[in-house]
C-alpha cells in the first residue's frame, strides 16, 4: 500500500494506492490551516480503507514548490511517517506532478501564490530548464512568448504519479525536505 500526500496549495489531498491502482482519494480544502485537516484526513482514510499504518510500504509526498507552510507540514508528516514506520519515501515536485496529468507536447505548468507563479516549461513531457518563480507582472510578459503552450495547473493524477516514480530511488527520510525556489526576504543581499 502507498500513502500519497499533497499539501502545496489550499487543498490537502491524501490517497491510498495498491501498486499503481488508486483505492481511495480524499480532498479537503483548508480554509485556515492544513494543521486542522492533514493528520485527521490521514487517520480517516486509513480507517476507511480498513488498514493500519503498518500496512503501508511507501510514502509519496509533494515537496513543493507552493505554500511554504503547507509544503512544510506535508513533508514533516511524510518524513516522520517514513522514519517511524521504517518504510520507503519518494518525493516529486508539484510542477512535475501536475505535468503528468496532461499529455500535450508543449505545456506550461503553473502553481500560483498571491504574488506570482512557480512555473515549469515542458516539451514532450520533459521539463526544459528548471522550475522558476515569476512575479505576476513578470509572468504577464513571459507568457507572451509561449502562446503555443498549453497552460495547466492544480490537477493531480495519483496513478500516473506512482507509475512515474516507480523507477525513482528512495530517499533517506532524514534528507527529505521541501524545495522552496523563492528566496526568503531576510536573505536578500546576503
Amino acid at each position, binding site marked *: 500500500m502507498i500513502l500519497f500526500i499533497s499539501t502545496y496549495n489550499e487543498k490537502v489531498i491524501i490517497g491510498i494506492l495498491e501498486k499503481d491502482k488508486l483505492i481511495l482519494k480524499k480532498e479537503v480544502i483548508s480554509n*485556515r*490551516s492544513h*494543521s*486542522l*485537516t*492533514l*493528520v*485527521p484526513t*490521514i*487517520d480517516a482514510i486509513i480507517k476507511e480503507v480498513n488498514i493500519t*499504518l503498518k500496512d503501508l510500504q511507501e510514502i509519496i509526498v509533494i515537496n513543493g514548490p507552493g505554500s*511554504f*507552510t503547507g509544503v*512544510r*507540514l506535508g*513533508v*514533516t*508528516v511524510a*518524513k*516522520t*511517517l517514513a*522514519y*517511524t*514506520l521504517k518504510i520507503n519515501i519518494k518525493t516529486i515536485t508539484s510542477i512535475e506532478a501536475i505535468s503528468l496529468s496532461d499529455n500535450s507536447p508543449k505545456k506550461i505548468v503553473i502553481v500560483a501564490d498571491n504574488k506570482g507563479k512557480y512555473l515549469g516549461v515542458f516539451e514532450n513531457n520533459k521539463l526544459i530548464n528548471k522550475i522558476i518563480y515569476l512575479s505576476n507582472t513578470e509572468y504577464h510578459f513571459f507568457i507572451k512568448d509561449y502562446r503555443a503552450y498549453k497552460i495547466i495547473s492544480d490537477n493531480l493524477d495519483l496513478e500516473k504519479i506512482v507509475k512515474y516514480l516507480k523507477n525513482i530511488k528512495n530517499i533517506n*527520510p*532524514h534528507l527529505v*525536505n*521541501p524545495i*522552496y525556489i523563492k528566496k*526568503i526576504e*531576510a*536573505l536578500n543581499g*546576503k
Partner: protein
Amino acid sequence: MKDIYILGVETSCDETSISIVKNGHVDVATTVLTQMDTHSSFGGVVPEIASRMHTENITLVLEDLFNKTDLTMNDVDAVAVTYAPGLLGSLLVGLEFAKTLSLVYQKPLIKVHHLAGHIYANNLEDKLEFPLLALIVSGGHTELVLMEDDYKFNVLGATLDDAVGEVYDKVAKVLDLPYPGGPNIEKYALDGKPTYLLPKSVVNDELNFSFSGLKSAVINLVHNEKQKGNEINKYNLASSFQTTAIEQLVRKTKDAIIKTNSKRLIIAGGVSANKYLRCEMTKLAIETNIKLSIPKMKYCTDNATMIAAAAYPLYLKKEFSAYDINAKSTDKLFTDF
C-alpha cells in the same frame, strides 16, 4: 503505581527539542538542537528560517534522543507538544510531528502551553508543593502568581507596561550590544559598577511592576551623553540598569511573600537564567526563610523536558487532544487582571 513516561516536543522558537520525562520530574533523556548561530548573523530569529530548520532536523533530533536511552516509543505513555505561544510556522512543525508520532504509536496527544513548561521546569528540581508563589520573568511576561494547585493560577501582580526580558533586549539595542541582547547585558554588567543613577519604580503597596520608566531613563541618558559628546561606559550602564531592574523584581516578590505568607517560591521563564537574579533571589529566600527553586540553567532556555514535565498533571487528568488542534502564536495560560 506504574511509572509514566511522557515524550515532549518543543519547537516554538529557534530550538528543536525532544525529551522523555518520567513521572513529571525525572529527565530520562533530552536533545536540544539550537539554531542560535544561524540567526545571530541576522541580529534576531528569522521566522521562516527557523521553520525550515525545524523540518530539516526534527527526525534527526528524535533519532539522537533514542540513542541516549534504552526506552523505545512503546514505553512512552503520551506525546506532549508546545501548541502556543511562539512563532506560528515553527510551532506547526512540532505540532504536526507530535500528531504523527501519536498516530503511529497510538499514544494520547497532550497540548502544552509554553509558559506552563517554564513553570513546571521547577518540578524537575524539586517537586512542586502547593500553594506556591511563582515569579514569571521572560521576554513576554513579568508576573507574580499564586498557584493553589496544578494549573490553578491566581495572578497577584503583573507588569503595567513592558516585560522585564523585553526591556533587557531594548537596553541591549540602545547600547549596541550584539545578539542575543538580554544575556549580553548580564555579561557586560559583570565587568561594570552601578555608577549611573537610574530611577527606581514608584514604591507602593501594589504587586504590579513597571519597567518603561527605567527603559526611557536609559535611552535618554544615552542620547544626552551622545549629544554632549561624552562616551558611555557600557559596562557600568549595563550594571546600573540590571541592578535597578532586578531590585524591583526582588522588592515586589518580597512584598508578595509577606502578603500571602507563602512558604514556597519558584522562578520561571527565560530571565530566570540571569545569574544576578538567581543570586538576589537566593538572598531573599534566606532573608524570608522561604523554600526557593530555580530551574537549572539548561531548563531556563527553551527545551522539551519542561514541556513533558508540564504535561504530566494533564496526563493524570486525561486532558488529551484530538488531531485537529491548531498552533497559536498567542494564547493566554491565565488572564492578568
